């Protein structure tokens, strides 16, 4: 059942195959964009212009890199090493427990609309990941590379889970505004608070599920040691 309208999905096929074959994502994404535009009946100049305009309209994404000189300077003066020393003072600290605390902090601050005070460049690389690694090493006396990767990946994952499943409790976040305006076009007038309140059950579930997995991370690290 190959109807012509399904041809515009070619870009998705290119992306899926490209990522599966681990081709360079910059090329895969560019080819997918050009192919999709051409199949949809646009000229090549029109497609390139569309791509250029969209890239330009999304420059705000690049502003977050302004923190790199600060993080780099602090690393120069031993911030990562200091973070590791600090966490070693807490004898009961494990990678999992530390990340559960960070998850809670991230969800609560995001729920107050403060989701930009933390993030991968600002907090995960210089503070959370080195602390989690130091805690794991202290508990289990030097961990192997495979376990280090595990801990670092979970540090980044915890930031994402906390951010995603905290922010929608805040009434002025973009996604709440989008839900509100989408449903308003069909005549359903909802206040932001009506929507934000229903984000709470999922936020609690996300905390419980991810915390459980962080405790299992601790168990996995313990088992690796033996």
């Amino acid at each position: 059942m190959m109807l012509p309208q399904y041809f515009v999905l070619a870009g998705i096929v290119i992306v899926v195959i490209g990522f599966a074959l681990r081709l360079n994502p910059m090329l895969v994404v560019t080819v997918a964009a050009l192919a999709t535009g051409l199949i949809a009946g646009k000229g090549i100049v029109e497609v390139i212009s569309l791509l250029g305009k969209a890239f330009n309209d999304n420059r705000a994404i690049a502003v977050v890199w302004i923190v790199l000189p600060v993080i780099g300077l602090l690393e120069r003066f031993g911030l990562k090493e200091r973070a590791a020393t600090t966490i070693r003072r807490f004898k009961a600290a494990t990678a999992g427990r530390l990340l559960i605390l960070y998850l809670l902090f991230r969800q609560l601050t995001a729920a107050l609309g403060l989701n930009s005070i933390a993030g991968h460049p600002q907090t995960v690389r210089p503070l959370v990941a080195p602390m989690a690694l130091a805690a794991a090493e202290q508990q289990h006396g030097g961990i192997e590379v495979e376990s280090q990767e595990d801990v670092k990946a979970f540090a980044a994952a915890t930031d994402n889970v906390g951010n995603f499943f905290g922010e929608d409790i805040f009434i002025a976040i973009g996604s709440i505004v989008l839900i509100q305006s989408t449903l308003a076009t069909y005549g359903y007038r909802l206040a932001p608070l009506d929507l934000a309140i229903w984000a709470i059950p999922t936020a609690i579930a996300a905390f419980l599920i991810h915390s459980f997995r962080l405790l299992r991370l601790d168990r996995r690290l313990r088992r690796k040691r033996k």
Partner: protein
Amino acid sequence: MITMQWPYSLVGLMFGGFAFYSALDRDNRKRFGNAAFWGLMALSLLAGSWLGDLGNGVLVLALAAIGGFGLMGRGAPETTSQGERLTWAHQLGDRLYLPALVIPAVALAGTLAFKYTPLGTLGWIEPQRETFVFLCVGSLLAVAIIFAWLKPPPSAPLQEGRRLIDAIGWAAVLPQLLAALGVVFAAAGVGEVIGGAARSVIPEGNVFLTLLVFGVGMALFTMIMGNAFAAFPVMAAAIGVPLLIQAYHGNPAVIGAIGMLTGFCGTLLTPMAANFNVVPAALLELKDRNGVIKAQIGTALPLFAVNILLIYFLAFR
């Protein structure tokens, strides 16, 4: 008024600095690739508003070619050794955290002042853009404090920043390119085709299966587009509003709010959400580019199931 061009210009100058020091870095065999790539980012941020759509499009193709064909290497900026860092860390102690806290503190104070005091109504900052401005102010303040206190060499902020941006490489630009891909997909009508396809597989009269297709559609379409924002209007138009809300009388607030969060589960599973899943893998120097996604599967799938059940029991009482 401080417009968005101010942060763009500041970040553009920073990328210009990265390009300059990249070009001088003889330890990097591909130094001119790095210089060209970061130089084009500088050009985009400084002059993108005046390059025209086609000019910006050619700039994007050049970035994709440099990043995509392996023309970038990794620079070796001057920095401190592991031993020196341990000594500094010991000497400075917990005071070292203070400059790190300046950025979140400024973001916090600025956001609160902007939202809850009359400061926000003065029109000093372009509406909706205050977060970006405060991020820049906080970063500048932190650099100033570090300079006054620890007196690093003048080139240090750009060289240390370059050390980090080179570790991330082209992945630093991927999120922006993916956002542009999403716009092309939307212009080509991909959303309508997906929505129609999702609708065509629904058996009539079964609330739970309809809800399941809605949820799977949200998650899958989010994975394709890299964010739930593009998926929500499409799935709401195809299934959410006509079937779940109108035909089966579901509660619109529950379906809207938890439906969006079902899409967020998809965000945890896709390399298309590059700034959350691919960039951190580069930033933490993980060996597996998909390491962060793999760590998230075990949270995303159960949470997806919980969301479906929550909608089922809360929206159709």
